[in-house]
């Protein structure tokens, strides 16, 4: 197989292709689910076969759930009179993550910095290492909520993926980047996808960027500014924006029965920092500030990259129409980074 060759898979063959691939390696792919009462849909990365494949809408939950499941058992206890033993299992099976966008892919890599920092979280890295990644590059934004180009993400980056796919008239063009991508190419061969040339890709429609990179120190300086109190009075402190966000990593650990489980938690909620003795963030504006500052100031100050990859999910999912872009622009103006 040459590195240069690409394959075209038409929409009507797509499902068959994923199915054949799934027989070799389990495939996680964005799928549509009807809501319980039939009003509308949502999409999510799930094992192939649970819903209807939908590669062109923004998924409600990001690929974070593939590497850091919303809820997972990190260990269990077995008790007898003599002792309590602790058992834990690592996730190990190889799988394919099909059709992820560069914002999500970049988010996962930015989180590698956190999960690998000092103590290596093997749950995260075992899943990172056993996942073959097929990036669906965006030559134009999905919709008006995408802003990856504000935060240093290249929507058409291909280098770090295992395979790359691109929407073309009537189907997708898929080509291989790394050795691990061979399994996908093999299956494409088998299902009789046509060989085509690797396309030249040019991203269009990513205009009017506000450069957020580099403003973390300026933002840090306005932590005590009065603007926070009036910035987002409509935020109700739910967990939606952090749960849908690919770079939000915060979690809670609890014992339930004989299991110790960890599951997502969110800084916009009251319980996040409350202890019986102390609540450092009693007000909602302080909790919203934590979310914004952690992403745009603390994370870059600590790890050198912005903790947001511009996927736009928090914007499309917030029930009270909080638009983080608006707030960032207001803050950057206040910090005199932009006019």
């Amino acid at each position, binding site marked *: 197989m040459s590195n240069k060759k690409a394959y075209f898979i038409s929409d009507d063959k797509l499902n068959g292709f994923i199915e054949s691939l799934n027989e070799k390696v389990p495939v996680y792919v964005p799928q549509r689910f009807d809501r319980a009462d039939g*009003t509308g849909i*949502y999409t999510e990365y799930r094992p192939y076969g649970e819903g209807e494949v939908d590669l062109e809408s923004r998924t409600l939950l990001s690929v974070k759930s593939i590497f850091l499941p*919303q*809820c997972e058992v990190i260990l269990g206890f077995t008790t007898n009179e003599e002792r309590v033993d602790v058992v834990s299992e690592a996730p190990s099976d190889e799988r394919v993550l099909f059709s992820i966008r560069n914002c999500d892919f970049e988010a996962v890599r930015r989180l590698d910095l956190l999960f690998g920092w000092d103590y290596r979280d093997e749950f995260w890295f075992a899943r990172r290492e056993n996942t073959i990644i097929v990036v669906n590059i965006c030559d134009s934004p999905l919709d008006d909520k995408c802003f990856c180009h504000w935060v240093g993400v290249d929507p058409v980056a291909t280098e770090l993926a295992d395979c790359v796919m691109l929407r073309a008239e009537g189907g997708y063009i898929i080509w291989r980047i790394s050795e691990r991508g061979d399994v996908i190419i093999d299956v494409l061969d088998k299902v009789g996808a046509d060989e085509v040339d690797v396309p030249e890709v040019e991203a269009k429609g990513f205009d009017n960027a506000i450069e957020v990179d580099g403003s973390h120190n300026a933002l840090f300086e306005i932590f005590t500014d009065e603007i926070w109190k009036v910035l987002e009075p409509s935020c109700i402190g*739910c967990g939606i924006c952090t749960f849908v966000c690919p770079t939000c990593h915060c979690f809670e650990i609890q014992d339930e029965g004989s299991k110790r489980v960890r*599951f997502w938690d969110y800084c916009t909620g009251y319980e996040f920092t409350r202890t019986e003795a102390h609540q450092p963030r009693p007000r909602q504006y302080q909790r919203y500030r934590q979310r914004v500052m952690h992403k745009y100031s603390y994370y870059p100050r600590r790890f050198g990259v912005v903790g947001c990859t511009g996927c736009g999910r928090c914007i499309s*999912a917030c029930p009270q129409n909080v638009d983080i872009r608006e707030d960032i622009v207001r803050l950057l103006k206040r910090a005199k980074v932009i006019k």
Partner: protein
Amino acid sequence: MTEAVNIGEEFRKKARELLRKGEINAVIGYKKSGLPPYSKPHIALKEDDTDEFIFDVNCVHNLVLYVLNYLLEYPEDKVAVLLKGCDQKSLIVLAQESKIDRERVKVIGFGCPGVIDPRKVEGDEEDAHKSLTAENVHDKCLYCDVRNTPQADIFIGEMVDIKPTKERYFREREFYGKKSESELLDFWKGAFSSCIRCYACRQVCPLCYCDICISYRNMPQWIELSPTTDNNMLFHVRRAMCMAGRCIDCGECERVCPVGIPLRLIYNKVSLEIEDKYDGYRAGMDSERKPPLQEYSMADPEDFIL
């Protein structure tokens, strides 16, 4: 269907006037947003903030939540708020529960033509949000009998006279009427398997005001926190208990749920039970009548107590 009454102009004028006179510290209303449902809550603290106020069929949010939050933060202040008839009912409940001092709130009422249900037109273009149609109108508006905000301190615009066209809670009556118990169990298991426990339904509810929700209390731990189907189900059953005799069907919980669980099917069912058991009691309709689950009477039915 009726077009939205145009009260925006009058509201802006009124809001400005109230803030100028200084007897009111904040006015809460709606402003335009760039995202569906194309409006969002807005709090005006200065006269100039009032320019942004609007009202149209997309103004779905229940602003009583913001009144409550504002008054918790600044208990000495007074606020004015634009309230639809349905939302106003939650203010009555909060006043009954002594959570809000009604004296500190000036209710600006109007004749409500109805609002859309953003979930019905999700993903559609902005055009679908322009005016009310049979497709996008919210269920609750079809049986609304409080269109002209009751107990308004200031009434702006014209009264409307639109009669209900559907029976109250028609969706729930239909839903529960048709299904067997095991079908219901399957339905709810399916629905709650997708709940992500973001607690948006709780956070957006003006009547869910507990500092520490019982789902976070762990001495003893009533409800486990991890989002498994069983735990989720328990959380929602428990929340339904909190809502019994209190839910006023503003529909906010159902609207905000990111995975689209039809939560009103639960709370309206509970409301139907309460109506049936307690002599037609409906939360927020009559500020004089004591909420049945907050008072004790010898005549209380107890057939549901095992």
